[in-house]
């Protein structure tokens, strides 16, 4: 249970004269001041893209799916590519919070709040696609198994698309609960600093009347831990189920047993990349360099190089298995993927996902903010192309060469994709304005255990309790038990 934190590990919170109040001030300040010009510019651009997306979506619903570049052979392309891409991005938040919580990785505290918000927004963007890709959106409620008067008329539980419905909605719900339960105490902090009545009322409502009693904290901790325990397999299951959309089909290039782990690794990979993209901007704009440190970025880069390599291994495995299967359709599908008409997409995928992240084996590159920013965007591009390659190259040339076709997007496809980027950024910018972008309570508890051994020793000396603090950050209590204060 006891965990030893190496003294040479760099502090998770940097900067001079950090106190609890300063943490509160720094983080809450963004919600109290008028937004800077850069925020307005960003918001304007994002909102414009979001509007473009909304127009394109309405156009699609009004005219029909025919406005997209799809054809009789390639029935899914940008829609499901975007869906899987966004779901993948939506994985990092919960993963950072839940899995890192379970693994007691304290460095998560600087980024988990924003990452969780990103998860929610990404899942909202992702969820949009299964909706609008339906030919008859207005009949979309058919997908829910509800008792009805149309005779016994139910859904098909064999369909991975139905599993998706359950997976995505569960994931969104659990992520939201996880995120929000963590936000309540921080909203209370904002409330208690609030000057105006309205502001106080709003933040009190948002905080659900949080006060911070020991009972509340006790249940809070328990809830966090169990939700993390539930969310971790959930995160894995969601992308596994998304991969079932392809893996359970019969189309060569889709029908692949490696998909579940490969998709999960890819999701973590792209999720972390997106977190980096956002956090590098956020820490700069909101001046949170003390809390989102180069150390955080380095840790994320380590995960990126790991998952990127896993994905790379998966790509190669696919090729080897296709060759080894001896099955001509499978062999063709993969040769076509790499060298066929869409070779360029495959090259982008390989280049961005497997090759460039290898730079992160070198510490200097891991800690280089500019490079990280560029590579994180590369990874996002690469992962989009991964999904595009899987979906489109498998479909466009499948079994019967008589149906083979080349897919080209229309302006509507592009506009909807850009639109979801706009919606995502708009929501994120609003979040950055109104919500504490860093988990205040969690950072404080990190600060409380790691902000300085000296201070603890001093305190201990004051009280003549020096012995209790020897050798560990744990606290020895009267009954002799040692509770590990590092286990947050």
């Amino acid at each position, binding site marked *: 249970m006891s965990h030893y934190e190496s003294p040479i590990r760099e502090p998770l919170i940097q900067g001079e004269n950090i106190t609890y109040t300063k943490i509160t001030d720094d983080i809450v300040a963004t919600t109290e001041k008028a937004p800077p010009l850069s925020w307005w510019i960003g918001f304007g651009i994002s909102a414009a893209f979001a509007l473009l997306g909304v127009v394109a979506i309405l156009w699609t619903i009004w005219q029909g799916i025919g406005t997209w570049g799809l054809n009789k052979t390639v029935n899914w392309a940008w829609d499901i590519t975007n869906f899987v891409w966004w779901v993948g991005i939506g994985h990092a938040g919960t993963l950072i919070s839940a899995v890192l919580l379970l693994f007691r990785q304290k460095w998560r505290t600087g980024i988990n709040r924003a990452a969780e918000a990103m998860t929610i927004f990404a899942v909202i963007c992702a969820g949009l696609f299964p909706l609008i890709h339906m030919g008859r959106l207005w009949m979309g409620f058919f997908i829910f198994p509800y008792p009805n008067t149309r005779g016994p008329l139910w859904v098909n539980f*064999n369909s991975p698309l139905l599993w998706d419905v359950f997976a995505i909605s569960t994931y969104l719900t659990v992520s939201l609960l996880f995120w929000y339960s963590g936000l309540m*105490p921080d909203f209370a902090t904002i409330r208690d600093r609030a000057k105006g009545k309205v502001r106080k009322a709003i933040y009190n409502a948002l905080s659900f009347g949080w006060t911070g009693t020991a009972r*509340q904290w006790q249940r809070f901790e328990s809830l966090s831990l169990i939700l993390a325990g539930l969310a971790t397999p959930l995160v894995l299951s969601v992308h596994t189920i998304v991969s079932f959309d392809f893996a359970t089909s019969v189309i060569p290039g889709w029908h692949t047993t490696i998909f579940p782990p490969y998709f999960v690794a890819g999701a973590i990979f792209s999720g972390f990349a997106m977190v980096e993209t956002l956090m590098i901007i956020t820490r700069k704009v909101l001046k949170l360099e003390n809390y989102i440190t180069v150390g955080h970025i380095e840790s994320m880069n380590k995960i990126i190089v790991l998952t990127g390599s896993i994905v790379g291994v998966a790509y190669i495995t696919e090729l080897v298995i296709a060759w080894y299967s001896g099955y001509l359709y499978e062999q063709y599908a993969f040769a076509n993927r790499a060298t066929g008409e869409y070779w360029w997409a495959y090259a982008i995928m390989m280049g961005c996902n497997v090759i460039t992240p290898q730079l992160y084996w070198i510490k200097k590159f891991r800690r280089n903010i500019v490079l990280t920013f560029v590579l994180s965007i590369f990874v996002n591009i690469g992962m989009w192309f991964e999904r595009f390659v899987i979906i489109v190259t498998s479909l466009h040339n499948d079994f019967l060469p008589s149906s083979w076709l080349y897919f080209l997007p229309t302006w509507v496809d592009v506009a909807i994709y850009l639109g979801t980027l706009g919606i995502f950024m708009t929501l994120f910018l609003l979040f950055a304005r109104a919500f504490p972008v860093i988990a205040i309570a969690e950072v404080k508890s990190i600060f409380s255990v790691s902000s300085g051994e000296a201070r603890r020793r001093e305190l201990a000396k004051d009280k003549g309790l020096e012995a209790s603090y020897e050798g560990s950050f744990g606290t020895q209590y009267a009954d002799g038990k040692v509770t590990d204060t590092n286990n947050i």
Partner: protein
Amino acid sequence: MASNKYIVGLFDHEDRLIDAVRACKKENVEITDTLTPFPVHGLEHELGYDDTRLHTAGFMFGITGTFVALSVMTWISTSSYPLNIGGKPHFALPSFIPITFELTVLFAAVGMVCVYCIRNGLFPGAVPRILDERITDDRFALSFEIDDHTPASKMEKIVALLKGAGAVDVKVKEFEDDMDMFEVETSEVSDLLPSNQAPKAANAKAETKKVLSDEEVAAKKLTLLNAVGTVDAGSKDDLKEIKGIGPVYEERLNELGIFTFSQVAKLTVEAREAVEDLTGFPGRVEREDWIGQAKELMNR
């Protein structure tokens, strides 16, 4: 509501809080609540709380989800709507696993969060009793419920314990039943004890304060206004900008004739005492450095 009155001890570090808890335990003083800005580990242990049974609830909800998912899917596929789908058997268990899993997690998570909110009294629109606004910032608080029948000795003991454990502030906070959280400061009635006064004396003082005669009040006001000078109400500053002064307090000060930062900055020792006596908020002027703040604000 059993009582609306609390003795509140505020600490500036979680370790001191834990010391105080230990002390209370040792003295057999029952702590009503412990409030902290972040989870202080081991605190619930110190307080002797049982482990929460939230996880048990989660488990029960989860099992319900599993059962509901499996049974509904089985019933639909084999009995209500048996279709030949791609040659698969009606009871296609492997196909049911993903949804079963998802519903298990969903039920567990949603159920548990509901229980959590109910048990913690959390809901949108809840009106919490905020013992101190800095609790969610950097203060660690112990609260002790008291009422009119609470023996003075007990109160004395509590205050002494808190002081002894290094509380940066000890106060009594009273809430009215129809309290509006925005007027929370109206309920702050007294500081029972200046740092080394006896509890009893404190009580006496509190009582004394209550019977402050009109002449005394007038005299104190005069003293005060002599010290700070009078100004026209029209040129008033927003005193709320001073940390520690809220809307209610500002109103009180205005009643006493204090409207500007410059007046605050001029609070002499006597004037300060007068303010504290008249408003019933002892020690705050100095503790929160109103004078310093006011000077800063004047120079702005």
